[in-house]
């Protein structure tokens, strides 16, 4: 055990690495225990220094600098990040615009088709009409001939059409006028629809025979059973 009075001085002298001077030096010359303690402290600090040197001067891996240089190459290579970003954004925008345009065109056609179909249905000259009502010469006019004549739709087709295309019922004498208007509309001319006065032809009311129903012969159930 070192002397209490010199204990701190011994530690500090060992930590500083200098040789003890003056009073401490004189004490160490005379006190064996303090001298042993001082040597022990010096040994401890020497161990610490050696350990520190070992850790501080570790061999540098040979791969360190080549790796750093490779990463520097990557870092300093031109990175045109904005080009792909720009391209991606531009192509996405083009696709969106194309999609919107396609949708609007498609929806316009869907709107146009029912009108056309309705007109076709209206202008179709009935096959079994009374010849006295319509003038055959008028039916042969070029404008009338250009109008498409739809075949009689099948029952299923009628149902389908009925869902989407409203049928317009007009007086027989205005069929031609409506057909011409429809044709103009189809050609995107949008001619104003001018109503014409009726030629005064009064349609005869539909004549139907009265329904004849024979008298029912109702018998009582009891009678029927007895028979």
């Amino acid at each position, binding site marked *: 055990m070192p002397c209490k009075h010199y204990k701190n001085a011994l530690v500090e002298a060992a930590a500083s690495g200098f040789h003890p001077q003056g009073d401490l030096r004189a004490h160490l010359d005379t006190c064996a225990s303090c001298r042993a303690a001082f040597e022990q402290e010096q040994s401890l600090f020497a161990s610490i220094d*050696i350990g*520190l040197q070992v*850790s501080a*001067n*570790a061999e540098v891996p040979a791969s360190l*600098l080549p790796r750093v*240089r490779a990463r*520097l190459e990557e*870092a300093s290579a*031109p990175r045109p990040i904005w080009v792909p970003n720009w391209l991606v954004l531009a192509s996405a925008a083009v696709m969106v615009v194309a999609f919107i345009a396609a949708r609007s065109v498609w929806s316009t056609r869907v709107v146009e088709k029912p009108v056309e179909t309705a007109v076709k249905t209206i202008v179709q000259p009935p096959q079994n009409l009374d010849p006295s009502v319509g003038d055959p010469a008028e039916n042969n006019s070029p404008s009338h001939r250009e109008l498409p004549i739809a075949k009689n739709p099948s029952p299923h087709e009628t149902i389908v059409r009925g869902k989407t295309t409203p049928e317009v019922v007009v007086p027989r004498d205005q069929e031609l006028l409506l057909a011409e208007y429809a044709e103009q509309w189809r050609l995107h001319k949008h001619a104003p629809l001018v109503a014409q006065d009726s030629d005064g032809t009064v349609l005869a009311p539909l004549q139907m025979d009265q329904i004849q129903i024979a008298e029912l012969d109702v018998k009582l159930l009891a009678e029927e059973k007895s028979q």
Partner: protein
Amino acid sequence: MQELVLVQPGRTVGDELEHEAAQADTRREFEARLAECGPLAYRVARGVLRNTADAEDVAQEALLRAYRSFHRLRDRTRFRAWLVRIAFRLALDRLRSGKRRELRDTIWSQPEHQPRGATAEDLAVSSEFQAHLDNALAELPEKLRLVLLLAAMEGHTIDDIAAMLGISTGTVKSRIFYARRQLAEKLRCHANTIKTR
């Protein structure tokens, strides 16, 4: 044949060429310092982390960061100090993150890394003592630890360290003194235990 030059929006071809030339200059200047300062970054990192793989990662990262910001460093003579601080800070972050702690230093206690012929200090070559020293070093305040590590590295004088860290030589000496004394206090009991076996 026409040469295609990639030009960023808002820049002319002339600007782009000037920029590339400046980058090449920076790269050349940095590479000139790399061979000298790369090992320093590694050793600082290893002194903190005590693991070769982690230290190499950290040193690489520190050098890359230094390269990225190299053009902003006005006083290029301060590069070593700057790099040391980056490496030290990154190593501390890595140490604190606790990642790969279980892998830490298998190499540390291997015989080839210990002093050969070890003077009279049998204690120092003891792997057990070395482990205690590592722990004690890790508990030191950052300022003391960095100065002690730099002082332990070969070729660094007190003046070098003072210049590197931008502190006075007196401060360097006192930090070394206090750091060693704190280590000694922590290791004294272990040293006695090991010696008496």
